[in-house]
């Protein structure tokens, strides 16, 4: 059921953001038609490296929805993070290095016939992915303040789980690797400041599922879907 909630929450957002880039591009392309010089949805190629930074916040919905719901009471939560982005001197190509953090408190549980029985023992879960992405920015001649982008890359997902009464060996502090894809659109408020909406999907296979409730629910993927808002600084 939690999975369904996540799907209901994120699917439209992902769908909207997913559509945003090509749709905007199409509009730009259509508007550009009378103008012979607009043969591409891309803005004119950048000639230099541009570097910017951003702060981000949003929501994450984990693929292992039942496991997160069983321990934390919900399978979604808030995230906060930041990163840097470098525009490269080849068209809209850019690279991005960002990280965010999810943290929640719950309680340990026992699962019996798919029923979750909470045991009242506090547990802290922290997920901190570092995402290294490469992508392409789409600029529009008539909508000069908008930029759409799409990217993909590697994820290093740090997972930390600690609970009361545990020994260090019983706690988890591991980093797993996976990959992600993302898409979004940025609006420049000024030359140096902008806001962006972005959706991403991450998969980190076989990170969980060998113990804990994730084993009981046979959920192995530590990834998930995020909907993030960004405040960007830089050109």
């Amino acid at each position, binding site marked *: 059921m939690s999975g369904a909630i996540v799907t209901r929450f994120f699917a439209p957002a992902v769908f909207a953001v997913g559509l945003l880039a090509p749709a905007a591009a199409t509009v730009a392309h259509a508007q550009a038609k009378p103008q012979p010089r607009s043969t591409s949805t891309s803005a004119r190629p950048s000639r230099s490296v541009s570097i910017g930074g951003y702060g981000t916040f949003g929501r994450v919905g984990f693929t292992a929805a039942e496991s997160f719901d069983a321990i934390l009471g919900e399978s979604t939560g808030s995230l906060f993070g930041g990163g840097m982005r470098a525009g490269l001197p080849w068209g809209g190509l850019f690279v991005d290095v960002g990280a965010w953090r999810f943290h929640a408190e719950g309680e340990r549980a026992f699962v019996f016939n798919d029923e979750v029985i*909470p045991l009242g*023992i506090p547990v802290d879960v922290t997920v901190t992915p570092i995402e290294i992405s490469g992508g392409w920015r789409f600029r529009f001649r008539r909508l000069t303040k908008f930029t759409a982008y799409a990217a993909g890359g590697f994820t290093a997902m740090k997972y930390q789980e600690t609970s009361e009464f545990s020994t260090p060996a019983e*706690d988890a502090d591991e980093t797993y690797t996976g990959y992600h894809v993302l898409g979004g659109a940025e609006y420049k408020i000024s030359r140096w400041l902008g806001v962006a909406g972005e959706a991403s999907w991450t998969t980190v296979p076989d990170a969980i599922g060998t113990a804990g409730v994730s084993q009981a629910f046979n959920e192995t993927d530590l990834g998930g879907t995020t909907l993030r808002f960004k405040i960007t600084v830089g050109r």
Partner: protein
Amino acid sequence: MSYSSPPRIATGAAVVALMALWSGIGHGQLVPGPVAKAMIQDTGLPAIDRGLRDQDPPRAARTGRDADRLRSASGAALPYVRGSIIVKFKEDATGGGISAATAQVAGTIADRSSWADFDIVSIPADTDAEAAAAAMRARPDVAYAQPRYRNHAMARPNDTLYANQWNFPAIEMERAWDIQPGASSSIVVAVLDSGMAFQTGTLRYISRFPFRPTPGGPLYPPLGVVDVPFAAAPELGASGSTRFVSPRDFIWNDDLPVDLDGHGTHVAGTIGQLTNNSNGTAGMAYNVRLMPVKVIQGLWDEIFGSPFEGTDDVVARGIRYAADNGAKVINLSIGREEGGPATVVTDAIRYAVSRGCFVVVAAGNTRAEGNQQNRLAIGAPDIAGMVAVGAVGRTLDLAFYSTTGPYVELAAPGGDQRQGGTSAGILQQTLDADQLETYTRPVSQYGPPRADSFAYEFFQGTSMATPHVSGFAALLMQQGINDPAAIEAAMKQFATEKGPAGRDDSFGFGLINPRATLRGLGLAR
């Protein structure tokens, strides 16, 4: 006729009665009467604490044969009671059908006992009860029928404070208590056993008949009227306190299930011995309340002529009573190896589980003597919420006596004194055998027992393993797992595997692991 005649008659009768009483006290010639047990004082001196008894020599192991020793001497050397059987008629059974069925075995139905959904059908004393039960089972109106098999304590009482309780560190109880410190008084654990030292006072019994404690041994004379001082075990709780709830004696059919054996008090100690009180020994779930339910008799109960003995129907009634009176865990450190299935008990256990009770039964102590299975425990695999418990010794190897079989689901410390001597048993406070079992003395020194003197004694047996699991269940309930089936699943899931991979007939799913079970599951760990 003179009006002075009645006083003369009364005086004469009184003299005759006094002479008869005197005669009875001295020679055991009392005319058998209906009352053989009466509370004559409900207060008494403080209990006597005779300390740790770790130097006692090993005592003879108790088996079903011992349980039958007195009544066997009277010719009842069968694993069941003669002259009656247990029958449950189907809901749609007609009066004609019931009459025809009982007529087939020349039987009559007695008034139904309390806490029973079955009937006791009296049959001729010389009728083979097993054959009669089989004939009844073949009838279309009968749901089940079985002889009134006798049950006995599973303990092997043997001969010795927390440092001596190796059994708790062996299952990491210190760390488990960090998570769940002893449950609470909201959990009631029923101990269906030989009674419990839960009250202080004096009980008057009548010993009418001579007996031989051992076949071929000396004949011990009747003691006549005997006033037995008894006391609440200091390490269980104060007499009259809220520690003890709904006491019931199905052996004497009253509300005074005092322990005249020591087995039940020892078992109760492992479940709920007062802990962290700077005295004596610890218990698994030391804050729970205890329900003393007496369903098996000790030798003294037999000497005093208890009206009932620990037959299947009595055990079944005890289980139903406990379930109906608020017990959440039922401990059955009892059983029998002989005879057929204990359908009436299994039925009662199903009822108890349906009422939210978790039922724990000893696997049995017969591995070294033919490995006969405990008939009360064999239904465990079919009932989610009931477990049968085997025993391990100090080395955590299977105890020499622990019965193996497909019904064994878990193992817990029960002690193995062949692998470590007296102190390798399970230590708890119980009745002081020296003061209680006066029938072990020469006839010339034989006298009334004291049930107000206590000692810390090492016992071994699956009877001792079983209360570890009962206490464990109480801790899990306090932690939030209330469904008996879920408790069983949790215990099995987190058990420390012993023996061959997977379930096996010796350890079941393994040695109980209270800490891991109470800690449960994290998200990924």
